[in-house]
């Protein structure tokens, strides 16, 4: 992921629940009360670009505690994870977060949740093959949908619901798979003609 990567930057704007560990007089605005000091123990949703550094930066005191502690975001909450374990394809990830996997990767870097990591990995693998399946269907059987340029997601048919629930990463995967299948087909036709 590059510094200029637009999707990485948007992923960094995803918020996670944080709890401040120290009193900070000047940061009341983060809790929507600019005139009040921010008390230790206040829970605030902070974007990743802020939360990450505050969570790993050392306050400098002897116990080495951080400015904030954080929890997993609701998108990675227990009920979502249980649903993913039951059937990864049945969960519209987009409703949880438009950058679900990007967020997940950040969270996995910050915490050691082996079980969650395994569940997410399985989710991606299972859904990726489903994505590829749909992408080939659209590209292969002569353009019945309006799935031409731009958003290919208005394909219609059985997979519509599933495709609507794709997160950004999966959408990219879908587009690549779809364009690949389409270019392949076009090339084959070109070969036949000449």
């Amino acid at each position: 992921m590059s510094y200029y990567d637009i999707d990485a930057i948007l992923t960094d704007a995803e918020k996670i629940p944080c709890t401040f560990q120290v009193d900070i007089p000047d940061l009341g605005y983060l809790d929507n009360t600019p005139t009040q000091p921010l008390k230790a123990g206040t829970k605030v949703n902070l974007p990743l670009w802020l939360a990450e550094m505050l969570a790993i930066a050392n306050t400098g005191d002897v116990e080495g505690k951080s400015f904030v502690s954080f929890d997993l975001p609701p998108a990675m909450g227990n009920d979502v994870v249980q649903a993913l374990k039951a059937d990864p394809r049945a969960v519209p990830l987009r409703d949880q977060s438009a950058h679900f996997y990007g967020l997940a990767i950040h969270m996995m870097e910050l915490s050691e949740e082996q079980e969650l990591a395994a569940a997410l990995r399985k989710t991606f693998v299972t859904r990726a093959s489903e994505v590829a399946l749909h992408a080939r269907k659209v590209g292969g059987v002569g353009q019945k949908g309006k799935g031409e340029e731009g958003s290919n997601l208005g394909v219609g048919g059985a997979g519509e619901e599933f495709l609507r629930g794709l997160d950004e990463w999966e959408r990219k995967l879908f587009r690549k798979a779809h364009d690949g299948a389409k270019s392949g087909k076009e090339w084959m036709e070109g070969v036949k003609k000449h």
Partner: protein
Amino acid sequence: MPMYGDLGNKLVQHAKRTQNLTHLPPYQTELVRAVTREVRDLDKDVASLLEPFQGSFDPSADQATACTLLVNHLSMRRNKRCLLAYHRTRTDKLEELVWNGSDVLDLAGQQAGGVNGAAADSGAGSSLSPQEEDYFRQYGDLLSAYKGQWTDIDLTGSLEPPRDLFIDVRVLKDAGEIQTEYGAINLTKNSQFYVRQGDVERLIAQGYLQKLG
């Protein structure tokens, strides 16, 4: 809850949309200005926070200030990244347009006409910032200089092998005189010619000529 970095995020959302467009939407002058102003304000805050310490600030002695400074610093860094990414997305697009042989003036006209009316609110002017227009022009110069090294290969020519070497074209706009292997042709509006495709490809792309048949 408006927060530092929110405006920068808006800018990046614009960039995201730009990536999926074929044309370049109007430059977000106001938003860019607001984000830069935010950085300047944050910098001022940092300076006034540090002022009492006379250059000997000890983070472990004053955690609250240390945290505020960190938040301010991160907000500035975030804004910087948003600004750079926004502009980079646009310059990437500009370079692409140069390689495709588009014209800044053409571009402005196209925008004002509004392909689907969406860009109509940009006023009569171009959708590029003055700096972007400079960039476009200078990149174009660079590309011409680079291309000039090879006289027998057109680096920006079409990659499609032509079906016919010669084609019929109609002149849509006066394009002046061009030199070809077979002599000079004067391209006046509404005239029609049978020419070598390679000679006029550029002019077709720029909308001076229309390919017939």
